[in-house]
């Protein structure tokens, strides 16, 4: 049974214009519309910019990234922010695939990151491949930064809907039917029921993730409708580690859910999604991990893939969940980034599980040499490495937005290369 229909409109080019419009894969972003959607007492100047794949542009201090989606005239995306949670939900969600809206600028606790639209780092961020509408902003004089951040978030979500609205009347490039997860108790045909547990960082101001508009901090793990995640029920307000955070865009396009759906009915059943907070103390972590394992078991999962958000602290939650799942008789696989030092010789995981299996999303410390670029958006200086934003720089993968995607969007992994072997021995 179809739970949701993705009506896909591809974007191949973008420009500014007097009014927002979409025609034959070309997106026009109306400047005045952007201004009005971001008008807020907490915001001063708002400067929209464009960055397309292949351009010599570096976006620094990127904040959240959102995919333009709309449910048409009835509305309904971003429940808890733009729509009431209890709403009549139509089946169709229009998606402007290949476009993204994002904010870039200073906020506290934002560990400076970057997106290069071309060059070596372009292969490491999903947002090097999207046509980006970049909103630079200044908080209003004297406005609390938290209010400015909330205003930016509202603006991004509204702009995402407004842009997708422009495509609603167009003939789609594809229509993707998404089925509901396999119901427990219904016949499996011998195929295993595999779900995904997604941990959300919930550390308060500027480091929080919202479910239906509210932080998940203090919650117990919960089963959650993947169709709601498609419709923007999970929104990121978390600006920590660039390579290890999950922007809203990646929740909307959740990679593990997508890969489970791809094999649904072939060698597994997609059994569902569990969302969990990441508590910041031991007792909470133990509590949430135990409950998550119990919940997966009660929901009849045979296995779970576990994803995280954040660095070492989040690794602890990941390892504890894998151990709790395996102890409960479920097969568990976690996605970890390795932290093996710039030469890759350090131990890969400090807070790994005792059992289960681990997929590597790359080495946090690996160094990249990036060339100078023509233009930088989001700022003029990268404070964390004390360099001009457009300069040629050497940075760790940790700084690339989405570079080590804990949700599994990236193609990086680590392979062990043993010390040199004598040529004679190989023969």
């Amino acid at each position, binding site marked *: 049974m179809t739970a949701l229909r993705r009506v896909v409109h591809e974007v191949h080019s973008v420009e500014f214009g007097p009014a927002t419009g979409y025609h034959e894969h070309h997106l026009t972003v109306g400047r005045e519309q952007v201004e009005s959607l971001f008008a807020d007492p907490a915001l001063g100047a708002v400067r929209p910019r464009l960055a397309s794949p292949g351009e010599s542009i570096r976006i620094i201090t990127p904040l959240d990234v959102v995919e333009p989606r709309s449910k048409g005239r009835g509305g309904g995306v971003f429940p808890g922010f733009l729509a009431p949670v209890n709403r009549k939900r139509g089946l169709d969600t229009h998606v402007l695939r290949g476009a993204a809206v994002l904010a870039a600028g200073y906020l506290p606790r934002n560990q400076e990151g970057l997106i290069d639209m071309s060059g070596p780092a372009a292969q490491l961020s999903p947002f090097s491949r999207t046509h980006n509408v970049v909103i630079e902003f200044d908080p209003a004089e004297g406005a609390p930064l938290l209010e400015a951040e909330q205003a930016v978030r509202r603006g991004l979500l509204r702009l995402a809907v407004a842009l997708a609205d422009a495509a609603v009347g167009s003939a789609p490039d594809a229509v993707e039917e998404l089925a509901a997860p396999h119901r427990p108790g219904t016949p499996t045909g011998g195929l295993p029921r595999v779900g995904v547990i997604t941990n959300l960082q919930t550390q308060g101001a500027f480091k929080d993730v919202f479910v239906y508009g509210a932080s998940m901090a203090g919650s117990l793990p919960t089963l959650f409708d993947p169709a709601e995640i498609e419709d923007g029920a999970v929104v990121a307000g978390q600006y920590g580690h660039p390579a290890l955070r999950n922007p809203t865009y990646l929740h909307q396009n959740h990679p593990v859910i997508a890969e489970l759906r791809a094999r649904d009915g072939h060698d597994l059943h997609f059994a569902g999604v569990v969302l969990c907070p990441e508590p*910041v*103390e*031991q007792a909470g*972590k133990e509590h949430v991990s135990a409950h998550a394992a119990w919940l997966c078991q009660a929901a009849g999962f045979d296995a779970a893939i576990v994803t995280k958000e954040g660095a070492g*602290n989040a690794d602890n939650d990941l390892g*504890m969940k894998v151990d709790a799942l395996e102890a409960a008789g479920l097969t568990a696989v976690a996605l970890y980034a390795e932290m093996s030092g710039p030469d890759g010789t350090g131990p890969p995981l*400090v*807070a790994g599980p005792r059992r289960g299996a681990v997929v590597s999303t790359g080495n946090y410390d690996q160094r990249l040499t990036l060339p100078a670029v023509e233009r930088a958006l989001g700022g003029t200086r990268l404070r964390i490495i004390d360099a001009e934003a457009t300069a040629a720089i050497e940075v760790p993968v940790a700084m690339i937005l989405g570079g080590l995607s804990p949700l599994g969007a990236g193609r990086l992994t680590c392979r062990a290369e043993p010390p040199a072997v004598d040529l004679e021995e190989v023969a």
Partner: protein
Amino acid sequence: MVTNLVTIAEQVGAPRIVAGRGIQYPSGDPNLSPQAEHEWRRRLVKRALAAVATHVDKPTIFTVDAEEDADA
């Protein structure tokens, strides 16, 4: 080592681990009144001192309970 994340401390082999109450405040507890927090911190340090004077063979966790006197 004084830390809230005792699981990680065990994994890295820290021989003497004293359990704190929060990642953000290993030697504190902002949920207590200032007076009570100071008393708790004293008990924590006493527990740490007891730990360094204790023979251990492997990672060992020393806890500081609300009521107990770490000197006992």
